[in-house]
C-alpha cells in the first residue's frame, strides 16, 4: 500500500514504529505496577498454605490446586477421585457467558449499525442513549429488571393483555434469567466497539458487491462483517471475559442456586470459607484460560499486522 513509498517508515503499518515503547509506557507502568505485581502476589498465594479464616501461611503447598482437581469425600479421607464440581462450575459459567455474548451480538450489531447510519451530532446522542441507563447502579437496575420479569410482573401482564400469551411465562430463577442478567450487565460493551468500527465502513465496497450481483445478505456476510471484524471481536471480548467472573446480576435474577466462577471465588475471600489460596488458585486457572484465548487472538492480529 501507500506506506511502501514513504521514506520515513520501513513497513506499511509502522508509522509510529520508533515511538512504540514510549506510547506503551504509561499503560505498562500503571498496570504493571498497580495490577501485575498484585496479581503475581496472588499467583504466589495460590501455592501457599491457607490460614484458617483468611490469609496465608508462608509455606509452600499444592493443596489449593489439589482441592480443585481431586475430591476426597466429605471428610477428606477417602481415596482421591477426579473432582467434577469446580470443572462443572467453570463449564457452566463459560456456557452462560457464551450465550450472553451471542445475545449481545445479535441485538448489539443491528443497534450499532443503526447508530452508525445516523448523521453528525445525532450519532453521539445515540451513543449517550445507549450508556445513560448505566448511570443507575447495577444493583438497582437489576432489581428493577427482576421486578419487570416476575411471574405477575408488568411484562407478563402486558403480554397477557395483548393476548400474546395465555399464562404468565416463568422467567425468574431460570437459566434464561442468568443469561439475561449477564446480557443486561454488558450490552453497551458490545454496541460501542462495533459502532466505532462500522462508522468507518466504506459503502463503495457494498456498491461494488451489488454490481457483482451479490445479494443483500451475501454482502453482509462476505463484505461487511469481515470489514468490521475488529469491532465485533473487541465487543465479544468486552462482554465474554467480564461475564466469566460476574455473578451479581445473574445471581439476583437467576436465584443463585448454583455457583458461578465469580461467586465461587468471592466466597473464598468474603464468605465463611476464608480460603485465600484456593480463591487465588481458581482465579489463576481462569486467568490462564482467558490468557490462552487472548494470546491466540493477539498472534492472529500480529500476523495481520506484519
Amino acid at each position, binding site marked *: 500500500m501507500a506506506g511502501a513509498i514513504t521514506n520515513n517508515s520501513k513497513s506499511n503499518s509502522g508509522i509510529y514504529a520508533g515511538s512504540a515503547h514510549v*506510547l506503551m509506557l504509561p499503560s505498562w507502568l500503571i498496570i504493571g505496577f498497580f495490577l501485575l505485581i498484585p496479581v503475581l502476589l496472588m499467583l504466589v498465594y495460590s501455592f501457599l498454605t491457607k490460614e484458617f479464616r483468611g490469609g496465608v501461611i508462608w509455606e509452600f503447598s499444592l493443596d489449593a490446586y489439589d482441592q480443585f482437581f481431586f475430591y476426597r469425600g466429605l471428610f477428606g479421607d477417602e481415596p482421591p477421585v477426579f473432582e467434577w464440581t469446580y470443572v462443572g462450575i467453570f463449564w457452566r459459567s463459560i456456557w452462560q457467558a457464551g450465550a450472553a455474548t451471542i445475545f449481545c451480538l445479535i441485538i448489539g450489531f*443491528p443497534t450499532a449499525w443503526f447508530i452508525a447510519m445516523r448523521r453528525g451530532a*445525532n450519532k453521539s446522542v445515540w451513543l449517550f442513549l445507549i450508556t445513560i441507563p448505566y448511570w443507575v447502579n447495577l*444493583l438497582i437496575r437489576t432489581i428493577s429488571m427482576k421486578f419487570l420479569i416476575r411471574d405477575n410482573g408488568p411484562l407478563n401482564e402486558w403480554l397477557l393483555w395483548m393476548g400474546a400469551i395465555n399464562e404468565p411465562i416463568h422467567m425468574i430463577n431460570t437459566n434464561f434469567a442468568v443469561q439475561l442478567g449477564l446480557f443486561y450487565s454488558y450490552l453497551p460493551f458490545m454496541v460501542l*466497539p462495533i459502532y466505532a468500527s462500522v462508522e468507518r465502513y466504506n459503502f463503495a465496497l457494498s456498491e461494488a458487491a451489488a454490481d457483482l450481483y451479490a445479494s443483500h445478505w451475501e454482502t453482509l456476510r462476505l463484505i461487511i462483517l469481515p470489514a468490521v471484524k475488529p469491532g465485533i471481536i473487541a465487543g465479544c471480548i468486552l462482554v465474554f471475559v467480564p461475564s466469566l467472573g460476574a455473578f451479581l446480576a445473574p445471581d439476583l435474577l437467576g436465584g443463585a442456586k448454583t455457583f458461578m466462577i465469580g461467586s465461587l471465588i468471592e466466597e473464598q*475471600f468474603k464468605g465463611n470459607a476464608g480460603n485465600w489460596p484456593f480463591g487465588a488458585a481458581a482465579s489463576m486457572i481462569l486467568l490462564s484460560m482467558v490468557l490462552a484465548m487472548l494470546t491466540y487472538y493477539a498472534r492472529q492480529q500480529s500476523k495481520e499486522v506484519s
Partner: protein
Amino acid sequence: MASKKIDLRYFPGFLPLTYLCLFLLYAPLIIVLVYSFNDSVSITKWGGLSLRWYSDVFFGPEAPKFQTAAFNSLTIAVIAATVSTTIATLAATAMIRAGNFKGRSFGFVLINLPIMVPEIVTAVATLIFFSAIGFTTGYLTILIAHIVFCIPFAYLPIAARMQSIDNTYEQAALDLYATKFEAFKLVLLPLMAPGILSGFLLAFIISLDDFIITNFVKGAGIETLPTAIFGSVKRGIQPNIMAISTLLLLVSVVFVTLSYLVGRAGEKSK
C-alpha cells in the same frame, strides 16, 4: 433482485432489533422512575404519589452522605475515564500503528489483564499491595484502582476503530512533510473521535458502577454511590435510592442535550 434498486444501508429486521435493544435498556428504568415517586417505604408495593424521597435526598438527615457519595462517584468516574482513555489511545497507537515491536504481545495481555482477573482478587491483592508499600487508602487509591481497570474498556473500542482506519491518510500527511506528531494530532485523532468517545463512555460507566474493588481500596470517610447502596442492605434498600438514581438520570439527560446542542451548533458553523 439486482435490477431492483435497493438501499445498501437497509437490512430488514435491524430496526426492530434496535427497538428491542432500547426497550431492554430502558424498561427497568421506568420502574426506577415510577417508584421514586412512591409514597410507601417499599420498593415493590405502590402506596400513592409523593415527593418525599426527593425531599429526603436533598434535606433528609442522611442527605449529606449520599450527596458526597454521588460527588465522589462522578468526579472519580470523570477523572478515571479521561486518564484511562488517554493511556488507552496512546497504547492503541503503538499496538496498531507501530508494526511488530518487541513486547507487543505482552503489551496486549497486560492491557487486558484488568478484565481477566476476577474483581474480588484484584480487590484483595490491590489492598495488600497498597498496605505493603505504605499507601494510605482514600480517594487517591480508589482513583488509581479505577484508572487501572478502566484501561481495557477504553482500549478495545479505540483499537477496533484504529484497525478500521487505513493508514493512507497519515502516510499522505507525512508525504506532505508533516511531522509524525502532526500526522497523529491532525489526521489520526480526528478520524479516531468516534472510537475515543466510545472508549471514554465505557470507561465512565464501568467506573461509576464499580463496587467490589472500591469497597476494599476506599479509606475511612470516603464513600461512592455503589458502596453506599450496597452497604444499605442492613436496613433494606430505601426508595431514596430510586430518587437518587432518577436524579442521576436527569443529570445525564441534561448533559446529553447540552452536548447535542453544542454539537449541532458546531456543525452549522462549518
